[in-house]
């Protein structure tokens, strides 16, 4: 396995994390690390535990053992609203926007814990995503898949997060839109957001990330820099069809 010691200060560290739903072990002693300013990708098939890991970091699942450390503070047993307050925001799989609510309301939900300055944040979001500005009065249910994904990302930005977890953003989107979404993530990363991404679109994800972890049945199988993983023969065989 490739040496995987990231450079820079750690923002998120997951140590020996285990989670189970009833009798099913969803995560088995998972260790990952994300540094400030990095995009780190979790690669794996359906059911590998990517979503479980993200939701556990966010405080939604009960932890059996292990620890989650964010900016040097343990957040393992904290509730989701406290963790969101501390600066982590999730862009859920399947977007998770509220379809009966307007674009503006969806954005303001992201800023729920700190509405101060939400006007300025909203202007910033609309300048980054002009299409959302055009549709701000429409209910989210009328948006296209790509627009909903943008809304979910924009909603994350409204919370002024230090770190964004993005769960399978490319799922169900046309290839051109997928490219747009990855461009957006790279742009956000350049603006300073640390990003933990989960993807099945392995090639594209590794092209945009700094490092990656390969997950299978709740375990971390491999880790390394994006180049190492792209050149890894097992990964090429399993995920890239080469």
């Amino acid at each position, binding site marked *: 396995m490739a040496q995987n010691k990231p450079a820079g200060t750690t923002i998120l560290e997951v140590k020996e994390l285990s989670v189970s739903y009833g009798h099913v072990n969803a995560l088995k002693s998972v260790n990952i690390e994300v540094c400030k300013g990095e995009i780190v990708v979790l690669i794996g098939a359906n059911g590998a535990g990517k979503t479980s890991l993200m939701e556990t970091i966010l405080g*939604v699942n009960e932890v059996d053992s292990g620890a989650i450390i964010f900016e040097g503070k343990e957040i393992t047993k904290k509730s*989701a609203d406290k963790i969101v307050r501390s600066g982590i*925001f*999730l862009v859920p799989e399947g977007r998770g926007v509220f379809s*009966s*609510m307007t674009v503006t309301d969806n954005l303001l939900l992201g800023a*729920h814990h700190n509405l101060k300055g939400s006007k300025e944040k909203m202007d910033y979001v609309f300048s980054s995503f002009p299409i959302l500005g055009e549709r701000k009065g429409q209910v989210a249910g009328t948006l296209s898949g790509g627009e909903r994904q943008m809304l979910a990302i924009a909603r994350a930005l409204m919370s002024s997060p230090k770190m964004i977890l993005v769960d399978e953003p490319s799922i169900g989107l046309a290839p051109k839109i997928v490219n747009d979404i990855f461009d957006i993530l790279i742009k956000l990363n350049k603006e300073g957001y640390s990003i933990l991404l989960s993807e099945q679109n392995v090639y594209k994800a590794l092209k945009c990330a700094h490092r990656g972890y390969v997950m299978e049945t709740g375990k971390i199988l491999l880790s390394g820099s994006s180049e190492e993983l792209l050149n890894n023969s097992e990964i090429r065989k399993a995920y890239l069809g080469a």
Partner: protein
Amino acid sequence: MEIFIAQVINGLSLGSIYVLLVTGFNLLLLVAMIIHFSFPVVVVFSMYIAWIVLGLTGNNIFLGVTAGILSAILFNIITAPMFQHIMKKRGEVDINSTMVLSMGLGMIITDFLSHSINSGFPIAFPDNLTGRAEGAFLKFGLISMSRGAFLALTVGVVFVSGLFWLLYKTKQGRAFRAIAEDPNGAKLVGLPILKTGLQSYALTGFLGGSTAILMAILLGSASPGLGDQLGHKVLAVSIIAGLGNLKGGLIVGLALGILEALVQGYWTGTWSNAIAFVIMLIAILVKPKGIFGMKL
């Protein structure tokens, strides 16, 4: 024609009461995620508390009204941990267990009222609260409105518009709507589910307590069985409008009030319940998911 208008106005007043009760029930269903079909029983309990305090204070209206409203808020908040205990374990609407809890609370209240207060006889509210002795509060020809009818209608309009303002214009309301649409999604964006749920208990308590006072003024009396009777109607109105559909509840609640008043005005008061339920039966046969659709 004047009789018709008079009865429609009466119906709107009675309908306002139904609307307030259905709205409270729907809010608990949407935000706290419980089926509290004994909510109207809690409201009748608050009528009794108001009556007791009125009796103890020599019919001091301010104290009686305050006690009635506070008792409903307190009752809701005190019972909330029991409901939330179930909700925390299930995470989603668990109709069976919250219904049993609600039913149990309703039975305890009804039993308590029929054994321990006024020997189970109906209670009558004093004239200085109901305004009965003064006669009509407003009068135009044959059309007249009692104080209770006038208050029920105006307070109903004010409260329901206030509620929609709260739901659509405030931060708390936004959180309410998000939880109502998708509790898990709401958790993922960091909304405090239990705390927001608790706020909905307090809010519906306030709605319920205020409705108790309006009912005391409008009806002038209460009996231990009133809560169950209203409970059936509120559940029926909510399901016929579409469970959790606030706007639907508003329309069907008012319609039920008008229907009952028209039956009383043109036919016979004693049959108004049965006729109302026959029409509701037909409505549910034609539209099993409710006239305006469920919103859960």
